[in-house]
């Protein structure tokens, strides 16, 4: 365990993250990059971007609360050190996505009301299931919920958003690249550290599986309502692209996001995340459970 955990040390994190892929970035993107002008010329597009970014902020706030809350109940120094880096990663994500809201024209004074207006209630419930475990000081369930379920979901959502932004919004695509690299590290820690703990405490299996089923249910409900609300924005973006004669394609797991409707996007995202859950849970000795309908 010590050898594997030394790969997640603060020293490694300093070298790979702040002194590595984040070097010379400003709020996660290259200096001088801006949001596309079309967002400011078209209110439907701007609102769509604000809505999705609000949910990124709320998701990252939950991740920050969970990872910081887990530091105290970590059973060893090396896990505490890793969670310290994860805490700062999540705080950085909160900061860069909040900054994106400001870049999209939300004023700092209206930040909380905007989050309340656009925040998805299912995402709040998703976070509550996780934070209940963290508050109880349950390290095993907390890490499964945080580093496998929440981070697994975030990883796929970021990848989908990255695929959609890569051609038209390099600023946001760059911001997402750094967060994807962070999430990959977090998921890796979860898989590696929890596998041995599940073997040590097999009695925790049922509770963790139940939590995964509950969180998955809230996650699917979040996707359903988020994509429904994003319908108008997606259609508008596709119309503008067509009128401009832009024939580029944004592919995500075989689906062309430039042409897909929101139902198709929701289906491919949900399918990808749930398959990932199955694989990752299997690796740590847990059995994937079908989502409990929210």
């Amino acid at each position, binding site marked *: 365990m010590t050898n594997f955990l030394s790969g997640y*040390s*603060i*020293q490694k994190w*300093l*070298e790979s993250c*702040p*002194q590595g892929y*984040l070097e*010379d970035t*400003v*709020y996660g993107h290259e*200096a001088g990059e801006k949001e596309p002008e079309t967002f400011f010329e078209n209110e439907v597009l701007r609102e769509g971007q604000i809505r999705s970014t609000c949910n990124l902020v709320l998701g990252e706030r939950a991740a*920050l*609360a969970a990872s*910081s*809350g887990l*530091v*105290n109940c970590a059973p*060893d*120094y090396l896990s*505490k*050190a890793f*969670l*310290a*880096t994860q*805490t*700062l990663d*999540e*705080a*950085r994500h*909160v*900061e860069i996505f*909040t900054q994106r809201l400001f870049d999209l024209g939300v004023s*700092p004074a209206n*930040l909380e009301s905007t989050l309340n207006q656009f925040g998805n209630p299912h995402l709040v419930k998703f976070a509550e299931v996780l934070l209940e475990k963290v508050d109880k000081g349950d390290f095993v369930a907390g890490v499964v919920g945080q580093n496998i379920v929440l981070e697994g979901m975030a990883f796929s959502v970021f990848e989908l958003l990255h695929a959609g932004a890569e051609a038209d919004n390099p600023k946001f695509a760059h911001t997402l690249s750094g967060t994807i690299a962070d999430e990959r590290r977090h998921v890796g820690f979860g898989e590696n550290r929890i596998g041995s703990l599940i073997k040590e405490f097999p009695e925790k299996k049922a509770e963790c599986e139940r939590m995964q089923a509950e969180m998955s249910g809230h996650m699917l409900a979040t996707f359903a309502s988020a994509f429904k609300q994003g319908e108008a924005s997606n259609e508008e973006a596709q119309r503008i692209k067509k009128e401009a004669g832009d024939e580029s394609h944004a592919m995500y797991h075989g689906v062309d996001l430039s042409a897909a409707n929101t139902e198709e996007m929701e289906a491919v995202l949900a399918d990808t995340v749930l398959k990932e859950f199955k694989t990752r849970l299997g690796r740590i000795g847990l059995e994937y459970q079908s989502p409990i309908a929210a």
Partner: protein
Amino acid sequence: MAEWQDPHALTEGEFLDEVHSFEFWFGAVEGYLHDRPYGYDPETEDIEMDDRRKDGLITTLCNYCVGETAALEASSGMIGFAPDRASQIFLSTQVADEGRHLEVLLHRLTMLGVRDPKREIEARANRSLLRFKERLLEFVDGHDWEAAVFAQNVILECLEFTVFRNHAQNADPITKQILQGIVIDERRHMGFGENDLGRRLILAPHMHDRLDRIKRELDSLVLTTFKQTLGELGLEGDDAPDLASDYLGAVARLGFGT
């Protein structure tokens, strides 16, 4: 790095957002952590120590680990009830700092031949420091923001700042560099405590009496810790640095006199 902005052109809120941000933290630590894995220049040669000196250093470093673990657990616990986003983000940078301090100290213990640092720390931990940690975490568990900031970012950080700064003057070259890097971080953490409590005290001056009571309670634990640390480092008698005065002076400079 973020584009430079004239701090005088910022509002108070904008200024706090700026100095409590990840961007600001990264700019601050980048200079002194680059090319210093585990807090020291890898070209530095370790010196030979006799058994007595080495044993004293191991005990001292074990107790530094107790202090840093207390700071790590307290600062991470405080994120959950921090009053605003900027404070949450600052505390997250502090969590990473405290985690780094713990890591570099554990690494140094390993270099000194300690095979099981966890067991060694448990065996050598100073009781006063453990009691201090217990009190600090009680404030955190009770979501008592003012008491937690005071105990953590004023008292504990001043204690560490004082001890590490003095110890660095007489330490072996590797320990010296490690401690100097930590001291720079502590200064930033103390600044947060001073700023946060200073603003609160203006709005609620009666809070001062309560913080003063907490200080009196914790001072005795701090002063006992100093006495034991000096003994472990072999710095007793007339030549010993006056850590108590240094500490009380540092706390007084933050606005909390005796």
